[in-house]
């Protein structure tokens, strides 16, 4: 057996990816950690050593706690909408009807829309309280138009982001559904199991794996939601739609406080790692890699 050699080759082949990612992690992260100990406003050079001051100011920033909460609400809200909505949609699309192909195209389309475009379109053409389509709709029913982005900023962001990710969840779950053993289903039906119990005892367990994938991949992207906020509410009003990435962005590029931005970055990395730790453990169990 040439396992020894094969192992060596394997290590050789894997190393470019590992080294690159390691470098991508360590170099910017190292610089960020270094910056986080500097008093470094790029508008008022030069930088000077300041110890943990940046961390103190970041953690006591009045925006920090709201941003943390908003990040959680955003991630969990979108996950809930897309997973539940995705399951329902997948069940629907799995039924027989005319024009399945086209409907599938319609449902998948939002996934292709870049976040900046979707944010601009939602903000202006739908949620604008004067000229937006929702405002027209409200007025048609004799109601006062809702000013979504100022009165319900976080919900508006959740809607936009969920819209973009719903197709993703739907398609994964639909593919999984299609692989469901129909004989088993029929047997259960013969035995008199109602659709509700069929769903909970057969369908849902079958979907567990794909739900895990949906949650994993989406969490990675949802923790970093930025463009939607940047384009629509700019984190406001107040801190109502500021999430952690946006707060750090604000510090580093609106206030040009590279030091405090870096401290925020380090904190964000720590938070992401905590999330990653739990998520990866859950996924590791379900994915039997």
């Amino acid at each position, binding site marked *: 057996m040439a396992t020894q050699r094969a192992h060596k*080759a394997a*290590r050789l082949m894997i190393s*470019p*990816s*590992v080294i*690159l*990612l390691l470098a991508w*992690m360590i170099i*910017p*992260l190292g*610089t*960020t950690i270094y910056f986080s100990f500097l008093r470094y406003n790029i508008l008022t050079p030069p930088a000077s050593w300041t110890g943990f001051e940046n961390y103190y100011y970041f953690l006591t920033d009045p925006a920090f706690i709201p941003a943390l909460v908003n990040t959680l609400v955003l991630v969990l809200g979108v996950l809930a909408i897309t997973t539940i909505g995705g399951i329902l949609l997948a069940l*629907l*699309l799995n039924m027989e*009807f*005319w*024009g399945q192909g086209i*409907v599938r*195209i*319609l*449902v998948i*389309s*939002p996934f*292709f*829309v*870049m*976040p*900046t*475009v*979707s944010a*601009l*379109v*939602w903000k202006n*053409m739908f949620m604008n309280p004067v*000229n937006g*389509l929702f405002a*027209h709709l409200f007025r048609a029913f004799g109601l006062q138009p809702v000013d979504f982005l100022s009165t319900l900023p976080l919900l508006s962001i959740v809607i936009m982001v969920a*819209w973009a990710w719903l*197709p993703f969840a739907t398609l994964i779950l639909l*593919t*999984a559904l299609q692989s469901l053993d*129909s004989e088993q289903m029929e047997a259960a039906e013969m035995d008199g199991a109602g659709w509700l119990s069929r769903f909970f005892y057969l369908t849902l367990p079958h979907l567990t*794996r*794909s739900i895990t*994938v949906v949650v994993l*991949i989406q969490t*990675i992207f949802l923790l*970093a939601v930025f*463009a939607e906020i*940047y*384009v629509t509410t700019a984190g406001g009003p107040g801190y109502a739609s500021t999430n952690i990435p946006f707060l750090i962005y604000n510090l*580093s*590029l609106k206030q040009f406080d*590279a030091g405090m*931005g870096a401290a*925020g970055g*380090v904190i964000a*990395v720590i938070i*992401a790692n905590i999330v990653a730790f739990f998520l990866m453990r859950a996924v590791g169990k379900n994915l039997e*890699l």
Partner: protein
Amino acid sequence: MARQTTTGQRALVTLVAWGIGILISFPIIWTVLTSFKTEATAIASPPVWFNFDWTLQNYIDVNTRSDYARYFMNSVVISIGSTLLGLAIAIPAAWSMAFQPTKNTKNVLMWMLSTKMMPAVGVLVPVYLGLRSMGLLDTRTALVIIMMLMNLPIIVWMLFTYFREIPGEILEAARMDGANLRNEIIYVLTPMAVPGIASTMLLNVILAWNEAFWTLNLTTTNAAPLTAFIASFSSPQGLFYAKLSAASTMAIAPILILGWFSQKQLVRGLTFGAVK
């Protein structure tokens, strides 16, 4: 399959499914429609649906103002370039993980994925300053590399799950026949892996095409892709819904059409290989 569906049921499901399909894609449909209106029609109350004077003026206006072709090219180069580069680096890694798994494989894979959780904003300033000192600000090179790094974990992971489905015995057989490692990859593995690679590629092109943090913050003109193109239509003076719609349509159309035509591959890609 054997279950009977009556025509009536089917019609009802058709109706509901179409309704929901149109509802979900409605923002896109509306944007495309608006792009053919005049600015005044675009904000008309009540909204105008189809009976307006269709015009291409917005597309002309957008094109005179911005050089769409260049943004488009940058998007193409960045998304395809980064994906190809990523594949070149990821294929060997995924191959070895799938066929020579060690007890660390799972951890390595999870670690790779966890690098994607590092918030980009956290390292923006260092990356910006680093690129500046290398003279790489606003270059496609920089964006290709960064997009590649952003997507590498996903590429590795997807390829890994695809490769794992390839039965190892075939490789064993090839090896018995005296194929060396290189030939094994080129003649045996690759043909079997092509569908998986294609799905991976497609999904990553889309992710890179739509990425809006690095592309917005690290480019000005030379390397600016469509995400930057659209940013210049945000909140301008005067009425702009129709022009915004035209610009939006132009920004999303290429990838939308690509997505439609390669839907089957893409759906496979979207499942990240985790669903058979």
